[in-house]
């Protein structure tokens, strides 16, 4: 990856950039969640879930379709929580019980390009 870094006030998310910052789709994030240990998912959740409002108050300032590189990186890391929260808040484990591993599903948004 290039030397794009998180906006300074969100440097506390730096430990999670390596795992989540380069992922570009829901399916990649779902795959990552299945691979990681529960402790790693819990660490992201603990750091980020209580501060979501702060993150989005910052992101609110930008055009969603033209995020600066630092904010785009921030949003990709934050999207990691969509998967980590399922493991932490719902299942208490990374994988859906009884599902094949690795498991992948195709997800297509009609007429919208998600980050």
């Amino acid at each position, binding site marked *: 990856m290039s030397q794009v870094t998180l906006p300074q006030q969100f440097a506390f998310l730096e430990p999670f950039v390596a795992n989540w910052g380069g992922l570009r789709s829901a399916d990649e994030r779902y795959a990552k969640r299945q691979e990681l240990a529960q402790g790693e998912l819990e660490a992201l959740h603990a750091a980020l879930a209580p501060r979501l409002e702060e993150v989005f108050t910052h992101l609110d300032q930008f055009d969603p379709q033209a995020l600066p590189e630092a904010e785009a990186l921030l949003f990709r890391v934050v999207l990691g929580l969509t998967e980590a929260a399922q493991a*932490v*808040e719902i299942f208490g484990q990374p994988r859906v019980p*009884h*599902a094949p591993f690795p498991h992948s599903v195709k997800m297509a*948004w*009609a007429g*919208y390009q*998600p980050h």
Partner: protein
Amino acid sequence: MADYSEHMTKAADLGLENGRVPTEYYTSPEYFRREQEMIFRRAWLMVGRVEEVPEPGDYVVRDMPTLKASVIIARGKDGEVRAFHNACSHRGVALVCQDRGNALTFRCPYHAWTYRIDGSLSAIPGEQDFAHVDKAANGLARIHLDSWSGFIFLNFADEPEVTLPEYLAGLDVMLEGAPFDQFPFYVAVTDEIDCNWKNLVNAFNEGYHVAVLHAKTLRPMVVPKDNPHLHYLDIKQFGPHSAGTVPRNFDYNPQAPALTWVYAQMLPTSAPDMEAIAQGRAGFYEHPGINRLNIPNFGTETITIFPNISIQPLANGYLFYQFWPISEGRMRTEVRVYARHAPRTLREEFAMASTLAATRDVVVEDMAMSRLQQIGFESGGKKFQHFGQNEPLLRMFTRDYEAFLAGGGLGPPARQAEAAE
């Protein structure tokens, strides 16, 4: 809270005695072959929405694994939506190679035979060598298409045995005017699973499993204290189709921080919008064909359209499930989550991505269990599975499945809009 136990429709209330069903229906290649011929080539099959092709020239290509069909669905200059087999009249090439687009003509990449968007053959290069080909009779092969409430149905028979309204047998009347068109945006979640397609059909036709299989996902949200096995209420039959009312646990009050934050940004399609309900403007809630009992903790009306469709209208959208067999032991599930609009902000995108992950995980639980079920069936030790009194829709589906395989199932169109009770 009122007692709704009298509305918990039992199989016996519907006269359904078939509590034991052969597992062979779920494992045999011969049964799969009969399903292709006697069900999927005869029934009207729901494949999408007219909003997928809003403008003249818009088209989509659907691959339908059950019949090995590649289908072009296109809106003509005259506004009519038509369906064709994706096959050139010359030497059979599947000529439209993009999933979707807008076109004036379709041109075969092999020898450039060209068709208008209405399917008619417009040009044969070197036409003098094809003097024996009647252009008027060699357009793209049509597939019968009709629509109801914006849903596109196809029929692969040479001549359908019944019209689409006859096929829907009163379900269409009950749901007339339901506001599906208010929720044009969707995300499609697709997966292929090693199981028989009817395992998934059955999973969506009973609530009995919800408190167990979905103990961590759906149970807290939907299973109310007074209906612990999530018995469907007020089951209605329309020919081979059905509808049942499913309650929701209005005591659900999530405390987890990420989930709570997501709910505050944008209610998921499934969550009741209490404010809107109080003001009498909660989408499907107001429709007279939905939640006829007017239960105060309404969750969804689960609507099954034979053979392979489930639609669940919810507070802020609806779910549209398609279950397509590929073989007796493999299937494709496509789940579409329909909402009012695409995300407008990053908050909404995050909220939608979160609830999609949650919805996907619930469906993954169902798919995972259906795969384990298939392993058990194919092991061969059990010749039958059992459908309880609390699983009336499974018995009903099996009754109609057997009728179709025997050459019936399609009429005469009995208008069975009566409730069981």
